[in-house]
């Protein structure tokens, strides 16, 4: 076991994937010499060369579009989109090409492309650097959408995404890049939790609290605080946003009877809406309260001096838990 930041764990996972498979490439803006603006690819170009760690021209559509071509040629490209708000120029390539090629080709073509996107707010950034665009991709059939929340998962999930034969949109919680955890970098990922499974990170009996990416830590802190008041919250890290692991979610809600979903993305038409609908359908007779959601507002991401109001924090999450418990 080694203590690593989430950023370093991703770096170790990428390194491992590149060592294990010579077809794995990394491409993006500033990923080479600089090592990425968050240093996630630090040192990789030095060790694997400029042909495998490619500093690209500044064109997101081309990063994904050429990755598709490289995948058609048998490579496994890992694209870095520098910031969440920069992914939109690549939307056509992701949604119309990457996601649909297997279907279009009736299974003749696989595109094992991983697209890494640092996401979410909380770092005091300027506009376009704090967004949560995951639902645009979760809504698109043909893509797998995942989000890691801790260093151990970051290490395993990035390797699982790269070896997955489907395109994977991989969200990294940027304000958690510096969070440390124990990571077993010596182990393979064969025994790791499958990429499409959610994980119960804290057992509880009164309320099921669902989160992913940056808010998993916030939810854990909320649950620990609630414990002082004698309330037992079960926290689940969804990990996979598409597909959703409804089995794990429903099993928990059937026990607790209450469910709160938290995410940074706007509540409106967010993942919480999909979960609420499915939980209602699958756990109707076990529910003691409606499924409640806490998240961003239906506004553009605000200037950073206001982001603490926008981002769900411990108090807003516990407020939702209180409301769910009040029924």
């Amino acid at each position: 076991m080694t203590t690593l930041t989430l950023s370093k764990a991703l770096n170790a996972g990428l390194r491992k994937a590149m060592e294990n498979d010579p077809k794995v490439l990394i491409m993006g803006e500033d990923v080479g010499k600089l090592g990425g603006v968050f240093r996630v690819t630090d040192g990789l170009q030095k060790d694997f060369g400029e042909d495998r760690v490619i500093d690209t021209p500044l064109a997101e559509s081309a990063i994904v579009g050429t990755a598709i071509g490289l995948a058609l040629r048998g490579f496994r490209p890992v694209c870095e989109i520098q910031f969440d708000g920069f992914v939109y120029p690549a939307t056509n390539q992701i949604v119309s090409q990457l996601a649909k090629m297997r279907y279009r080709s009736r299974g003749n073509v696989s595109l094992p492309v991983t697209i890494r996107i640092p996401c979410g707010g909380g770092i005091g950034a300027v506009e376009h650097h704090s967004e949560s665009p995951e639902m645009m991709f979760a809504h698109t059939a043909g893509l797998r959408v995942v989000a890691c929340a801790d260093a151990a998962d970051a290490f395993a999930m990035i390797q699982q995404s790269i070896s997955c034969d489907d395109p994977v949109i991989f969200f990294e919680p940027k304000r958690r890049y510096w969070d440390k955890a124990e990571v077993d970098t010596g182990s393979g990922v064969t025994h790791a939790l499958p990429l499409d499974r959610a994980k119960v990170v804290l057992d509880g009996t009164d309320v099921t609290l669902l989160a992913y990416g940056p808010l998993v830590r916030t939810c854990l802190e909320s649950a620990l605080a609630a414990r002082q008041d004698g309330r037992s919250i079960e926290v689940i890290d969804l990990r996979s946003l598409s597909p959703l692991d409804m089995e794990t979610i429903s099993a928990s809600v059937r026990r607790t009877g209450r469910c709160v979903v938290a995410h940074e993305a706007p509540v409106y038409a967010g993942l919480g809406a999909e979960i609420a609908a499915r939980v209602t359908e699958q756990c109707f007779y076990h529910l003691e309260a409606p499924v409640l959601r806490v998240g961003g507002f239906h506004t553009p991401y605000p200037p950073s001096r206001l982001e603490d109001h926008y981002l769900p924090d411990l108090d807003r999450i516990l407020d939702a838990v209180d409301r769910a418990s009040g029924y």
Partner: protein
Amino acid sequence: MTVESGAATTDQLVQLLTPEGERIEHPDYPLDLSAADIRAMYRDLVLVRRIDTEAISLQRQGELGIWASLLGQEAAQIGSGRALTLDDMVFPTYREHGVAWCRGIDPVKLLELYRGVSHGGWDPEEHKFHLYTIVIGSQTLHATGYAMGIQRDGAVGGDSANEAVIAYFGDGATSQGDVNEAFVWASVFNAPVVFFCQNNQWAISEPLEKQSRIPLYQRARGFGFPGLRVDGNDVLACYAVTQKAMQAAREGQGPTFIEAFTYRMGAHTTTDDPTRYRLASELEAWKLKDPIERVRAYLVRTGQAEPEFFAAVDAEAKEVGARIREACRTMPDPPPLAIFDNVYAEPTSILREEREQYAAYLDSFEEAGR
């Protein structure tokens, strides 16, 4: 504001066969083809035109949802298509029926797409011919990436170098961001890719002047690689320039932009009505530059083909037409649950659930005896 446009000037046009069927020499493109080679090109030109005509009729009769005609662009497609090695990789638009023919794709596969039976469905690697791409220009980036893959496989340059990539697109696509990004990338990475632009003068209703103020081939210079303009209705010239550009790419000299100056003699697709936006006289002028007639005139005048040859090609065209017509009309719809196939390598839990629910819903009709 109206601007003067030089986009349509025809100076610097590479031509080896005039519209009258006269063979002319070009210092940069010496070409030594046998009579059999040229007859084979003629055969391809006639057959793909026939396939196209048949497809239009099938659409008119309700057998196809839509068809994008290649009428007028046969030489650009057969000339460039025949210049490729079996190892070269092609990235087409949705109108490259002639190139598809050169790559051994059964035209019935193309009809499947336009009938609505599949979105394509051939194996791109088997034919080295990627799926039709409908979003304008997107495939130029795939082509560039694929070419970067050839580089990483160490397959560029050297004696055994036998593969490069060709990306097809139209004049309208040159305004797309993806196409310009592909130019930047191909140039910066010196990727073995040839950009083959069929400038057919019209992007549905928009004339070339809406896309460019300079001849398209001149744009290549700004990106740092050579560009040239070829008579797109001249199958020999299209063959020669493509062969040379592909060879340069295979040898490691990077990309070339080829502007095949041609004309979309038909509508954009069967849903389009060109009488709303262009003059009949323009079409009449281009008919005089027909890509097939000039080859026929050349073969006849030089005694490289007998009347029996032309009769045999016509008979074969008829046969091909009849075959694809029959295949189209008897083509079954896919079974309903095929909707759920091939979305992911393995169906996800969400997809499995939807499939099961829909199957049960369909079964409920059977049980109810409806």
